[in-house]
């Protein structure tokens, strides 16, 4: 573990760095697509988001103008469990390397460890982004079909469910899921163990909102909702009551981005300065 023991490889000569990165990307993409697991996990993200969103949408009723329900939040209820699956994608992308011992081979082949990590992150990002977009589109479509029939009508203050705000909610939710997967990847790189990493990530996601809900001190609850990646990030889904949010929608997503950047940084530092 001593720093002196680590011999850092010399930097790539100019012009070769790009080729090395491309090779790393190709290698990681091959690893990703030739295993069935990530596909099933991403299918799970889509299925959970759409199914639970549709169920919540068919259960929600808005009987008056002040029913206080946010149609976007209702449609995207499935995000609560689906983000755990997205987190699993990120955790396992790195965790599987450690649990199978593949990491030794990977780092031998790619001695520039950060190149490996960011190739990993890039390879995870694209499919998660695509699956999230599919999931959110499905949930939004389900909401679009059911909610107007359940009282989410212009008369109750829900104009069309296809405004710019609704688009922001959808895009923001896609980005949120992707950021959570990357956050998990960073944590896994820092922890090196899938079980511990998924525990840390799910604790980080779910404990903030629980603490904020049960604490009766409004100031502290508000701060917890601003700090926690889940409550802050899901501010981006809000389409009603924007003035009462603890953060603006994009600020909320920014908080998640900060958490993700922090986790990736931590993972990168741990990877660079530690024996694998």
């Amino acid at each position, binding site marked *: 573990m001593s720093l002196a023991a680590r011999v850092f490889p010399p930097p790539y000569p100019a012009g070769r760095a790009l080729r090395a990165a491309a090779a790393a990307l190709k290698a990681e993409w091959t690893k990703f697509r030739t295993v069935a697991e990530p596909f099933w996990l991403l299918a799970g993200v889509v299925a959970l988001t759409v199914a639970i969103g549709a169920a919540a949408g068919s259960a929600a009723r808005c009987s008056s103008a002040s029913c206080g329900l946010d149609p976007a939040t209702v449609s995207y209820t499935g995000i609560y*469990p689906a983000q755990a699956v997205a987190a699993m994608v990120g955790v396992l992308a790195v965790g599987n390397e450690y649990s199978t011992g593949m990491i030794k081979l990977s780092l031998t082949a790619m001695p520039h460890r950060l190149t490996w990590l960011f190739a990993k992150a890039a390879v995870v990002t694209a499919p998660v982004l695509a699956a999230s977009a599919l999931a959110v589109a499905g949930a939004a479509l389900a909401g679009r079909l059911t909610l107007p029939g359940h009282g989410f009508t212009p008369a109750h203050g829900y104009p069309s469910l296809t405004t710019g705000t609704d688009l922001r909610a959808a895009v923001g939710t896609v980005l949120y899921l992707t950021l959570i997967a990357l956050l998990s990847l960073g944590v896994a790189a820092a922890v090196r163990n899938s079980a511990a990493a*998924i*525990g840390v990530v799910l604790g980080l996601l*779910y404990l903030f909102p629980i603490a904020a809900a049960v604490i009766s001190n409004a100031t502290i609850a508000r701060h917890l909702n601003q700090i926690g990646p889940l409550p802050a990030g899901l501010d981006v889904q809000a389409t009603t009551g924007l003035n009462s949010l603890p953060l603006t929608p994009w600020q909320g997503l920014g908080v998640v981005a900060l958490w993700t950047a922090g986790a990736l940084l931590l993972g990168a530092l741990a990877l660079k300065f530690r024996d694998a």
Partner: protein
Amino acid sequence: MTTPTAAPHRPPLNRERERFWYLIHGEWTKFRTVRGWVIAVLVTILAITAFAFLFSDISAGCAVSSGAGGTASPASCPPPPPTGPGGEPVQDAFYFLHQPLTSNGTITVQLTSLTGQVAIGPGSNGQSQMGSGLQPWSKAGIIIKENMSQGSAYAAMMVTGSNGVRMQWDYVNDRPGLPGSVSASAPRWLRLVRDGDTITGYDSADGTQWTPVDTVTLPGLTDPKQAGTVQAGLFTAAPSTGNATTTTGVFQHIGLSWPATRWTATNVGGTSQNGVGQPGTFSQSGGVLTVTGGSGDIAPLVGGAGVISIQRALLGTFFGLIPLIVVAAMFVTGEYRRGLIRVSLTAAPRRGRLLAAKAVVIAAVGFVAGAVAAALALAVGTPVLPRTGIPVWPVSLLTEARMVVGTGALLALAGVLAMAIAIIVRRSAPAITTAIVVIFIPYLLTVGVGPQGGGNGGGGDWLLQATPVAAMAVQQALPKYYQVAAPYAVVGGYYPLAPWAGLAVECAWAAAALALAFFLLRRRDV
């Protein structure tokens, strides 16, 4: 993944070598010799205890100065509510027409009407605009009360908005009498008979056929300090809905067994913070007394903001669950990952017994961790809780014991559930994710974490009745009173199921997962 195989060889039981105890001992050795797992269990205990401090202190509804100075600042905290004979915080604010009753006696009335009003919006000159609206537990009737101070012992017969005739005493007790609502064509006769410290309530539809509702003993009534004198008379109370309310009762045929004096009208509790919302009025014409009281009740305090209990100290349970679930899953998946499972199954070819041994060990670990953590959390929370400035509901030692044992059982079952899921999926990340999602998401959706509090729209009580997190009910220390209408919300500490019923739901989940794990473990090669 699995190929059909011939029935596996099942050797006969070697009594000596295969004693169940040896299996448990083996599994326990596996558990205790992994340093990370032991640390995770300690983290479980530490998390629950540490958050006991957090949740019982900073959860304050009003400012708290916990520094060297000492107690809560009176400027920002409301005055403490009165406490009833049982030591529980109560609401004791009503309009009372009373006379002293120096010895034994009987009071009888006939009620012919009960009406109510509720504020429906701001009106002119600062007064609220009132519309008719009787609350289900609006009440008017007769009462015998120890003295005029708030929280003193009492027994009352009353008609209510939509719950018929009731006898209530000492704030938390309630007994139904005649059903149906009161009207001029269906009057209700009420009677209270005092004999020393015993009070019997009767009701009647016609004033001749009397039915006893209940007989209660209130030791406070014979307090030597007041030489046996109590206050007896008529009252009305209008439980507030957040908006101002009034209740009007029309009394006739008032019969007193003692030489009547003039009625004294008192707003019990005054119009202060813990008193009535607005002063009551009464008018008398002939033998008819019309009594109107505003915004108050004679009832225990309920609800999240109104009263808290030591239950808050256990909210760290969620924090402790995560490391425990991780360890319980790794207890199995570690064997699969390292191939140890093959050795384990070779040593214990009867696979059900291996599964049982693992379940026993993880349940024991979870139970001890949960019970120890809960006991520590209660010990930490008890002195800290009053600093919140919110009235604290007294909790009996028996209830605390149930909370401690129940938290142990809750963690034990969560551990068994996670372990069983781990056997089913054989991989740590999916097992942990499934266990955490199944336990945490229903709670999250029920407490409503969306931007507007109830953001999900779909989450209802059923989530807390049908999923493992129903077991949180075992920590409930605040009793629900059906005779007090209030939002009994989860965040306030009220769960839809009874304590042990909630635990039984989690038990069913763990049992179902174990059954599936047993089936798969026997059927699969490894």
